[in-house]
């Protein structure tokens, strides 16, 4: 063994290397590792939370969907009811309209018949007068015999 001054030189080099490593190498690397570990832990926690949130949201969405479906069914039910109601109402209204129109038609027909009857009666009177004139060979003074005529017409 030949220990010599090399030992001193190496000791100094060793101390300098350790000092440099302690000052400039270890802290930034270790800090980066620890910061990243913390970040990963936080990220995992956040992802867990997000998963739970998602589950909750899905549950909520399912419930809402169910509610919406039942509401839709209700609305359809109501609409169907309303539809039949409207149809019935329309039928009733139409029936009433029909009756009204029929009644109006009847009265009009009645009036028309009455008028025709009247006209016919008058024409018959005229015809009767004309016939009577023929028979009597003379004219009948309409004014003088109007009472007879009227009586005749009334008898028709």
């Amino acid at each position, binding site marked *: 063994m030949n220990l010599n001054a090399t030992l001193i030189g*190496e000791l100094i080099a060793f101390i300098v290397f350790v000092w440099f*490593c302690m000052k400039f*190498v270890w802290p930034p690397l270790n800090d980066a*590792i620890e910061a990243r570990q913390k*970040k990963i832990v936080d990220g995992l926690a956040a992802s867990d939370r997000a998963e739970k949130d998602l589950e909750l949201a899905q549950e909520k969405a399912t419930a809402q969907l169910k509610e919406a479906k039942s509401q839709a069914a209700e609305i359809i039910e109501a609409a169907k009811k309303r539809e039949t109601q409207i149809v019935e109402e329309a039928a009733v209204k139409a029936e009433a309209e029909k009756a009204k129109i029929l009644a109006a038609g009847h009265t009009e027909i009645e009036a028309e018949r009455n008028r025709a009857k009247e006209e016919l009666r008058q024409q018959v009177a005229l015809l009767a007068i004309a016939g009577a004139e023929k028979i009597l060979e003379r004219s009948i003074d309409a004014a003088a015999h109007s009472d007879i005529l009227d009586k005749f017409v009334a008898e028709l």
Partner: protein
Amino acid sequence: MAEEVTLSGHIQHHLTNAKMCSTESGLAFNKACSDSGFWTWHIDTLAWSIGLGILFLAIFRSAAKKATIGVPGKFQCFIEMIVDFVGDNVAKTFQGKSTLIAPLALTIFVWVFLMNLMDLIPVDFLPALAGFVGESAFGMDSHDVYMKIVPTTDINLTAALAVGVFLLMVAYSVKIKGVSGFIKELTLHPFSTDNKLAMVFLIPCNLLLETIALIAKPFSLALRLFGNLYAGELIFILIGAIGLMQLPLHFVWAVFHILVIVLQAFVFMMLTIVYLSMASSDNH
């Protein structure tokens, strides 16, 4: 080659560091330094170890500068894997908090690993290149150019690491337990009694035992790393000397040696953490 190279000469050449020392006539190298005593510098050990240390720091510093909280690149992942591995071991082994232990462990692990890794470069490549450069550029005899590229096969380097760890152990002991606590630890264990008179006899025994136990730690640290790598290097040199048959043998030994390289770096790091943990814990 001017003279016949013997096998032992070849091995000797491989196991000799490039030396530098200052003499009365200025800086001298290698054989001129054979009797220069303590103030000799192993310039190959110094250059390779400091170069590898700077390489380690440059790689890790560049990763540290680019470190982001976001998605890391592959390079950053690799560096962070090492940092995390060392940090995990420190956290599991070292009781208490310290901003020094983890970077110290990282430096020891990666630096020692890189230095050990030099062992996998075929033993003749770089010394032969150095010999060629020395001969052609500086006009030296290529046998007079030494180049030992594995710094951990130099006891000076492993001893320097162990001394550094030892100083930290003493510093931590004093810092946590105080000077009196440290002295008590050295003198009142493992034998203790309430009898004052008996204690007077026991204290020297305790001091002797505890001092040996304390000194043995850096010694074992330094010698374990040195011994493992020196032996490995020696076997590489022997394999390299047997001609063409070396290829399969070299491969097998290199594969096995990969284990030694990582393991010794890891063991040095772990024992450093354990010793410092023991030094900074109160319960004996």
